[in-house]
């Protein structure tokens, strides 16, 4: 059955495919959003030799895939992809465009929004469709432990970025079929003003913390760089990873890669141990999917303590040391 409603587009961000599942997660969310008004769910993909991704997107919910497949598009060049997206969106007029908030997506989406003169909400943690067909975009807002519901009431397409890991992908459906629309690339693409000189894959511990079952997170309340080191010992005992807040990263107590928050990583552990963190929204927005939170802080009124399952009013550093001792005692050898 062919749907006639306005299309929801998901940008196909396939670089580093096995780690970066955000496109599949967005296709799942788009499928959910489309239930209300029967919007077709579409993926848009640019590149060279990308047929396997087209099939993947169909297997994960795309009913239609717009494809621009050409050797000149293999470089994953933001500038070129922005031009192509602008062209396609102006031609096919999607109702919504969802983009994964990868580094690439966070540079790509605002530029597309600018060219289409429309609104864009960054880092949404939830998306819903209201009765008027408007996308209710829930995103962290400044001013306490707050989320804002944002809409783009008039301008089209309605655009949002979503961080990897916020939504859950649908299971791979081998039976799924979809329409593939091959769009020729324009005869003359402008010359790249930004040129890639070299690119090297850095397989650091980049995504490890995102998938960790246990995260031990520390803030300035740990007291010092030296005391902060204890969190690594605790994490090792628990088989978890260490995360940090922005002030800690700025003070060089922890590496930038361990930053948990809007500018850093989004986590969804079964258990989060939070030490000496007051809980600014930029941090807490990244851990709303944590299943069970134990927070330690001297200040019982800190937002982090309010959102914890267990709030321990005590010195973070002392509790960390005691917890290391207790776990060592209790592990069955």
């Amino acid at each position: 059955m062919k749907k006639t409603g306005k299309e929801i587009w998901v940008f196909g961000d396939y670089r580093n495919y096995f780690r970066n599942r955000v496109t599949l997660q967005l296709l799942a969310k788009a499928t959910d959003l489309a239930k209300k008004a029967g919007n077709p769910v579409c993926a848009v993909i640019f590149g060279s030799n990308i047929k396997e991704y087209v099939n993947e997107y169909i297997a994960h919910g795309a009913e239609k895939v717009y494809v621009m497949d050409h050797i000149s598009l293999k470089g994953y060049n933001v500038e070129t992809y922005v031009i192509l997206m602008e062209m396609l969106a102006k031609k096919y007029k999607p109702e919504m465009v969802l983009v994964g908030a990868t580094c690439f997506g966070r540079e790509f989406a605002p530029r597309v929004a600018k060219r289409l003169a429309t609104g864009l909400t960054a880092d949404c943690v939830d998306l819903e469709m209201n009765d008027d067909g408007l996308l209710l975009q829930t995103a962290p807002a400044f001013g306490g432990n707050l989320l804002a519901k944002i809409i783009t009431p008039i301008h089209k397409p309605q655009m949002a970025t979503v961080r990897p890991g916020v939504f859950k992908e649908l299971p791979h459906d081998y039976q799924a079929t979809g329409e593939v629309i091959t769009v020729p690339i324009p005869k003359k693409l402008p010359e790249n003003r930004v040129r890639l000189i070299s690119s090297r894959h850095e397989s650091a511990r980049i995504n490890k913390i995102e998938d960790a079952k246990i995260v031990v997170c520390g803030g300035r309340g740990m007291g010092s760089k030296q005391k902060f080191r204890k969190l690594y010992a605790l994490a090792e005992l628990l088989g978890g990873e260490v995360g940090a807040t922005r002030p800690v990263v700025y003070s060089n107590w922890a590496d930038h890669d361990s930053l948990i928050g809007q500018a850093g990583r989004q986590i969804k552990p079964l258990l989060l141990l939070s030490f000496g963190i007051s809980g600014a929204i930029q941090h807490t927005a990244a851990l709303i999917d944590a299943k069970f939170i134990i927070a330690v802080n001297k200040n019982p009124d800190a937002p982090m303590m309010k959102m914890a399952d267990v709030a321990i009013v005590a010195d973070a550093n002392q509790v960390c040391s005691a917890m290391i001792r207790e776990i060592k005692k209790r592990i069955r050898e």
Partner: protein
Amino acid sequence: MTMLKMVVCIKQVPMVSELPWDSRTGTLKREIAEGMMNPACKHALEAALRIKHEHGGHITVITMGPPMAAEVLYEALTLGADRGILLTDKQMAGADTLITSFTIARAIEKECPEFDLVICGSQTSDSETAQVGPQLAEELKIPSAAYIESLECWGETIRMKRLSDDFLETLEMDLPGLVTITTRHFHPRYATLSGLEEAFQFSDITILSAEDLGLSPDCIGMKASPTRILDVFSITAEKENYVMKGAVKKILEEVFEKFGDKISSAMGKDLKTHEHSD
């Protein structure tokens, strides 16, 4: 090499690490929050200062905000920027990223039409959208690269490095262009008090309103912004929020007794819930 004419966009944000919280409502008492220069903007300014010290050059710092945002311009001038521009106008308030970048672009075109390089922080600590820099480049119709960690001038082009989605990239960009700088490198220098005092006395700051920029009230501020905030709410979830106080040792015994299963199941290992059991 010709000396670069640089524009650094900066923003004043509330001092996040020292936010005064209202414990009753869980919100920020914004009126008593102190302002500071956004961290990534400090790194952006540092990048410009290093270029200036190495090759010479001229740095204009530009900000949009309430009149008190002039503080961050003084700070930048103290550190070595040459000129400050403050865009302040009640009509500009409430602009989203699309309109903010529009407004700043018009000011750059008017006040620094000959610029070679625009440098922004990759994101602000108060809204973290990371959208204004890339959108400003689009508005100025110049090339741009986001999340840059280091850069070098090569005459008509610049060379840059960044880590983008696990790829360490080296890029080359034609000038004029725009970069956004992360907080990973370019650790900022700090302003001295005497320097600040001097900046307050002898500095070159231009204050511009919407009218000065020739912008009609219909194309700026909240009015012109495509996005609308419908509702703001707390994310404090409905958790049991079991509060524990007292001696640390006792607390921990209770933690393992009551919640040991949560810890052990996350670990995928058995833990003794009682210290002396089996």
